[in-house]
């Protein structure tokens, strides 16, 4: 158990307390798991209107090429990620992965081209390791800076655009994964049209000094509700999005994790900049030859949630183990249990019936397409 006195506070900590947030330790931070309305209402509100999340615990990193040429920073970063960074246009963002020499995933992240530098958002628990990894890998050609003077919030849901439009009308012209700089209440923020709920929405990086002010003003909007980590987790699970440390880690490869879409053609075999990232031999071989296991969506029958760690079996007697659940819970928008996990490839086809062990019983589970809820990104 982490001692509360050692937990780091985000710039919005006092605001969470004033909103009745129930605070819990998370990745070294004290964060709100829920507010007074509770996880169910917070989840459903995000899908119906707009939810506001404090994600300031995540790492914000700037990579600035010493040459002044953004292509040099992009090519340097491509040595650490199997992602087409060079082809990322100015004002655009892309999901990426840090890989290790065994093809495992060190972290997942967002990479934005901000014209004269790259702007990265990485996971809280990994940010110090990511920063060291970037310094070591890119330090000769780039200045790498972990920002400690900015908050990060996410505004997610079908009303997010209208809410933000009241502060900055041009936001309506942004497409999914666009990144722009804009003044919200005279505070210069970096806004990306992205998020991790499956909904249309925005992530907004704000200078610490103005974070409470901008956030409070957004929360004043009748459509906006503060959302805690609990609903953040159920929303991303319904959206079929991986949580680092649960669904992906150093022991899973991008192909096993069904994240091939995060590796563009230019980095695959035959591409103009194929390979050249850690673990490329294994990962590119898996593109060609497949893997022995795959990440899949799982729909348990009945009402009982199947949690992370549950063992999956091919048969109702629990004699042939074929995998395990990595994330599982109750999906408020689905009104039933949902889960993700890894199964042997022979059992990974949609519609395959398998069984999950829950408290000594073997509950039927159907392998299902992800996401569980339709994504509403404005492409």
């Amino acid at each position: 158990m982490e001692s509360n006195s050692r937990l780091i506070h985000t710039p919005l900590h006092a605001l969470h307390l004033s909103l009745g947030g129930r605070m819990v330790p998370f990745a070294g931070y004290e964060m709100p798991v829920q507010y007074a309305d509770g996880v169910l209402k917070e989840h459903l509100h995000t899908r119906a209107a707009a939810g506001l999340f404090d994600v300031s615990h995540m790492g914000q990193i700037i990579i600035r090429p010493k040459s002044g040429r953004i292509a040099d920073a992009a090519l340097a970063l491509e040595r650490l990620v199997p992602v087409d960074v060079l082809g990322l246009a100015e004002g655009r963002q892309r999901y990426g992965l840090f890989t290790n020499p065994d093809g495992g995933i060190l972290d997942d992240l967002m990479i934005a081209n901000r014209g004269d530098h790259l702007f990265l958002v990485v996971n809280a628990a990994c940010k110090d390791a990511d920063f060291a990894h970037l310094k070591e890998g890119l330090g000769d050609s780039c200045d790498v800076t972990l920002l400690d003077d900015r908050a990060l919030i996410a505004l997610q849901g079908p009303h997010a655009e209208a809410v933000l439009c009241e502060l900055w009308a041009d936001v309506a012209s942004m497409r999914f994964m666009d990144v722009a700089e804009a003044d919200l209440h005279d505070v210069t923020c970096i806004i990306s049209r992205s998020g991790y709920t499956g909904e249309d929405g925005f992530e907004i990086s704000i200078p610490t000094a103005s974070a409470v002010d901008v956030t409070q003003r957004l929360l004043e909007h009748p459509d906006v509700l503060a959302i805690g980590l609990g609903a953040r987790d159920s929303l991303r699970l319904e959206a079929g999005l991986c949580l680092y440390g649960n669904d992906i880690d150093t022991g899973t490869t991008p192909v096993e994790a069904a994240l091939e879409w995060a590796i563009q053609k230019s980095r695959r075999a035959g591409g103009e900049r194929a390979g050249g990232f850690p673990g490329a031999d294994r990962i590119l071989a898996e593109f060609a030859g497949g893997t022995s296991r795959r990440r899949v969506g799982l729909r348990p029958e009945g009402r009982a949630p199947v949690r992370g760690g549950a063992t999956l079996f091919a048969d109702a007697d629990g004699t042939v183990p074929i995998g395990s659940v990595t994330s599982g819970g109750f999906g408020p928008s689905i009104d039933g249990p949902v889960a993700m996990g890894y199964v042997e490839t022979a059992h990974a086809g949609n519609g395959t019936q398998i069984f999950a062990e829950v408290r000594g019983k073997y509950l039927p589970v159907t392998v299902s397409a992800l996401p569980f809820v339709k994504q509403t990104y404005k492409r």
Partner: protein
Amino acid sequence: MLKFTEEHEWLKVEGGVATVGITEHAAGQLGDLVFVELPEAGATFSKGDSAATVESVKAASDVYCPLDGEIVEINQAIVDDPSLVNSDPQGAAWFFKLKLADPRSADNLLDEAAYKELVG
């Protein structure tokens, strides 16, 4: 008179049978419940055994048998609608009725004042 356990169950003992549920404090801590699994009537438990499971959106928790005894009735209403446990934990949302192996065993449990002190 209601009795309480340190594990946040409440009991109402009448004629050697305890009606058992989870406290308002426990229901509040668990948050929105979405699944309840109850034991079968006829099952016997010792004090401290896991007798039921409640699940919120986030996590599963055990409900412990507060005393030795046999389950004589369960409350299907909370299986059909787990949110009842959040709205009326110490009333309509009882979990099961337990025929006590020793009807006097409830005497040693906490009374309401002692339980309130425990949870602050």
